[in-house]
């Protein structure tokens, strides 16, 4: 199954019955899958007139308390960013998928990770975050989609699956043997008062600054809980590593090959693969900064995650960048050479 299809099927299994989207390469398989499946299971697939309309349809369904998603690729996510901000301001859960492609502007249609800043910093205007999940296999496309819905509901915020064109297009075996948790109640939803309760209002407007400040403080208290409880990452051969690669998504898969090759050649290399990009696995990086000589951030961007790596390690260890951009992907050899170079002359 293709990565994009795995996302769509997982969403359906998670109980999502509403999908709104607008065609854009390389994620259109998600919309196509939903268009086929939703009518057969009593769900709604609607091709919106624009990405802006799609995210606002998401806003509507989410207000009414149902699981809902949209998906797009980089230029489309920029258009949706308005809606992402409103979802955050109204504390609404939603799942948004970004199968990143190279930018800026129209850029290209080949894979990229250059929306890291946009995703981890929120995307739209205002103080807010999204939970950002970074799958590196087709199986994780499914797993993290389901997890995304659960976290979104639990914390009343948007969860973004930050994928890329490669993982979206590739096929790997995937198991859908999930235990789907029961969805939590949403007493705040606008489902009609049925004349049995006071009216619910879904809103992000607070003209009183004291009140607005209070909502921001409360939101950030919630974010602290998320940082404590929901940070995920994979540590691969890190415990004795001199050279540590930081990489997520497709870059992590390439890097794993390089780490294995380095180990085969007697270099103590390891890999930290953040699975949640927000919250960022700061503690894991801080821990390994104590013994590593150098960290290499391998990215399909001009160096975005590298800033979080430096913050997390308080600059205790040199952090360098190894990247390809514009739709190009680093090769295992490129990463391996960077490891060798760092091992020979780099380090603290």
């Amino acid at each position, binding site marked *: 199954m293709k990565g994009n299809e795995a996302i769509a099927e997982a969403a359906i299994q998670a109980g999502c019955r509403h999908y709104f989207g607008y065609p854009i*390469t*390389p994620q259109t398989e998600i919309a196509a899958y939903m268009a086929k499946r939703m009518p057969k299971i009593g769900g709604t697939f609607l091709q919106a007139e624009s990405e802006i309309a799609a995210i606002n349809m998401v806003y509507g369904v989410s207000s009414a308390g149902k699981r809902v998603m949209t998906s797009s690729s980089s230029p489309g996510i920029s258009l949706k960013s308005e809606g992402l901000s409103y979802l955050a301001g109204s504390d609404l859960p939603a799942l948004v998928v970004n199968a990143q492609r190279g930018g800026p502007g129209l850029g290209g*249609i080949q894979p990229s990770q250059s929306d890291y800043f946009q995703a981890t910093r929120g995307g739209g205007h205002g103080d807010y975050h999204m939970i950002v999940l970074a799958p590196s296999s087709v199986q994780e496309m499914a797993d993290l989609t389901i997890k995304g819905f659960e976290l979104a509901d639990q914390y009343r915020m948007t969860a973004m699956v930050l994928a890329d*064109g*490669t993982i979206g*297009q*590739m*096929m*790997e*075996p995937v198991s859908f043997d999930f235990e789907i948790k029961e969805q939590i109640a949403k007493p705040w939803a606008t489902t009609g008062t049925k004349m049995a309760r006071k009216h619910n209002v879904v809103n992000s407007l607070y003209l009183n600054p004291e009140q607005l400040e209070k909502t921001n403080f409360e939101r950030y208290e919630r974010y602290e809980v998320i940082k404590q409880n929901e940070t995920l990452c994979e540590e691969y051969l890190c415990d004795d590593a001199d050279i540590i690669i930081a990489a997520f998504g*497709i870059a992590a*898969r*390439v890097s*794993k*090959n390089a780490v*294995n090759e380095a180990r085969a050649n007697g270099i103590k290399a390891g890999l930290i693969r953040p699975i949640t990009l927000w919250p960022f696995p700061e503690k894991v990086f801080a821990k390994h900064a104590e013994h590593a000589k150098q960290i290499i951030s391998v990215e399909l961007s001009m160096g975005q995650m590298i800033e979080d790596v430096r913050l997390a390690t308080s600059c205790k260890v040199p952090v360098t960048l190894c990247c390809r951009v514009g739709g190009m*992907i680093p*090769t*295992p050899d490129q990463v391996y050479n960077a490891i060798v170079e760092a091992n020979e002359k780099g380090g603290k």
Partner: protein
Amino acid sequence: MTKEYLFAGFGGQGLLFSGKVLAYKGLIENKNVSWLPSYGPEMRGGTANCSVILSDDPVGAPIVLTPDVLVAMNNPSLDKYENAVRSGGVILVDSSLIERKVNRDDVSVYYVPATKLASDEGAPTLANMILMGKLLTVLGDYNEETVNKALEKCISARHADMKELNRKMMEIGKNYTE
């Protein structure tokens, strides 16, 4: 053991499908597999290739840069990937479409006029499956049972009649000798 395959040619030649059959066959044989297409803006024509990896271990990077096996179905693909093939690897050439010979002497090369053979059978678009039959044969990997199951997986019920034809083409490839 890990084997990396690269299928390369024009869009519309069924290379992505070949890769899919191979990946499903691997899956049925309990291997770890990945299948990754190149994707471009064109729906027909243009270059198309796909990377398939079959391995006993979890698959790392899914992009095949140094294939053990190259199946080339047009000149630009052979030009581009010929030198990337690992020493001791295999190159399969559709000799109806590629006139030149492979310049390497450290790889096994097989020339199959697949497009002509397929056209003779009235199915010019199934040259890919003739190459697939030949490929699995030279690799000593032609397992009737898993091949059939893989075809079953890859051909939708709507095109069930195509299954037999695909299988027949693979047979032709299997039995072809230069």
